[in-house]
């Protein structure tokens, strides 16, 4: 048992999978909890050496996907293949390749950091000497050497997160699965953990989940957006932004001409060639009595709008283009229609 685990570690850490090949293939995952459908046909690939971000609002199915990947729970249907092995057939062998940090970082709060990591190492089949060597290396990597003799319960949230990362890294796994690794941390701790994950991404395939857009933009090579148990987008940040580049969102604030109703103005805006949709977003009385409309157009038609407003006698208060960044894409894709 001990020997095989060590041999396994050595073979898995010397990544045999060619770069860009899918190390994890997720196909048509469905997960039902009683009557709730948590995942409804989720499919995506994770390529060797990349940092993949699973992005989505709370309850979208990110954690469920990760729990299935780590074989904590089973999918109702669908397949997961890791390094060519079926998860259903080889759950223990696949778990040996994974390092996992669940959401909320569950740890034994009454244990000393050192004892806890030795325990994790032994559970993963290491002998004492190997365990101590790996413990020293990992403690240096995640920056917990100063607290190695402390009880876990007394540590700050940031250090607990590092201990959680240390246990996930101890066996030098090929794949790291991190569920909301920065949630609950203060801004400085968030920056530190993000930098750490970026460093880890150089030697490991990483899947992390987050509902924080700037985080996945900063850390991840590729993003899979999950919403209501389904993948709604999959690609690099550039690809995702490119997808919606031909949609222009414009914000128009207009003081209506005397006697004109907001609805009349909206219909007028919607009639301008190139406008896909026009929505009255809010009425503002300060500093000028004006209504604000959000438009979606096929091209940038700001000059046409200005000309129309002038001809119709409306007072143009503001006219700007809303940038279609990742945030807008996310909102657009996960908008509850």
């Amino acid at each position, binding site marked *: *048992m001990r020997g095989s685990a060590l041999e396994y570690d050595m073979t898995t850490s010397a990544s045999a999978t060619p770069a860009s090949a899918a190390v994890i293939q997720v196909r048509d995952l469905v997960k039902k909890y009683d009557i709730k459908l948590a995942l409804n046909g989720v499919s995506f690939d994770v390529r060797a050496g990349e940092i993949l971000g699973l992005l989505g609002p709370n309850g979208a199915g990110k954690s469920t996907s990760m729990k299935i990947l780590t074989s904590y729970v089973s999918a109702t249907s669908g397949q997961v293949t890791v390094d060519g092995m079926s998860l259903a057939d080889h759950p223990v062998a696949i778990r040996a390749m994974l390092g996992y940090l669940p959401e909320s970082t*569950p740890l034994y709060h009454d244990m000393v950091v050192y004892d806890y990591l030795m325990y994790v190492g032994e559970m993963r089949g290491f002998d004492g000497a190997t365990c101590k060597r790996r413990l020293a290396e990992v403690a240096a990597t995640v920056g917990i050497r100063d607290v190695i003799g402390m009880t876990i319960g007394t540590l700050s949230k940031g250090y607990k997160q590092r201990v959680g990362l240390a246990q996930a890294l101890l066996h030098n796994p090929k794949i790291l699965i991190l569920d909301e690794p920065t949630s609950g941390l203060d801004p400085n701790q968030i920056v530190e953990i993000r930098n750490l994950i970026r460093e880890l991404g150089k030697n490991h395939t990483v899947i992390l989940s987050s509902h924080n857009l700037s985080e996945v933009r900063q850390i991840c090579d590729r993003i899979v957006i999950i919403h209501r148990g389904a993948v709604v987008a999959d690609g690099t940040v550039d690809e995702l932004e490119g997808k919606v580049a031909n949609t222009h969102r414009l914000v128009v604030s207009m003081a209506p001409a005397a006697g004109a109703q907001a609805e009349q103005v909206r219909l007028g805006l919607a009639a301008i060639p190139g406008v896909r949709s026009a929505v009255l977003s809010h009425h503002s009385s300060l500093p000028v009595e004006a209504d604000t409309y959000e438009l979606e157009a096929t091209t940038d038609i700001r000059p046409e709008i200005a000309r129309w407003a002038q001809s119709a006698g409306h007072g143009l208060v503001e006219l700007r283009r809303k940038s279609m960044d990742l945030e807008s894409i996310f909102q657009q894709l996960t908008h509850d229609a």
Partner: protein
Amino acid sequence: MKPIWTLARREMAATFDSPIAYIAATVFLVATGLLFFFGLGGGDDYFTAREATLRPLFDFAPWVLAVILPAVTMRLIAEEKKSGTLELLVTMPVTDLQIVLGKLLGGIGFLVVALALTLVFPALVLSIGQPDLGAIAGGYIGLFLVGTAFLSLGVMTSTWTHNQIVAFIVGLLLCVFFWTATDALLKTLFEQPPPALQLLNFQTQFSDFAKGVLDLRSVLYFVSVTAVAVVASTYSLQSRHWK
């Protein structure tokens, strides 16, 4: 095997890190000590019996074990469920059966320590007379087997809930039920309980051990009860997959 030992060692350390182990061990020693020296009324006590025997100890120790062992096992899985550490444990390269066996072995570690503490009683009896050593050895083997069966029932109830108190109460009820209530239940249900069903009672199976009779059927009985509880615990852990 290694994960089982690692887990058992951690559970032993965690048990003796918490006050429960010391309270349980103290309760066990004091209760068995009192019962040993003074009996439960009715029969002769240690001072009047004028007999070098440990029968009073073996008669009453299982009652005490039925109360304290569920207190030791209640946290084994329930605490991991509540704190979320179970998610890390079951996603390590270990099987659910190894987890249950490791936890049970940790509990057995406590049982062995608790039983070892009572060796003061046979030492006392040996110093004043010539007791039947076979009966003493048989009694301790019986206590170990019945204690292990209680522990396995306790581990099983600990897999059923997040709440340690619930695990304790249900575990206690199960242990008391198997120790004694099966007998009462059978007597209520049948005028002449079928002998086969009477054998389900822990007390019936245990009584021979205290007499120094090592009946292989009784050994097999307690081993079987433990095995069934271990399998049930493993299924209970695995139920997360289809919930």
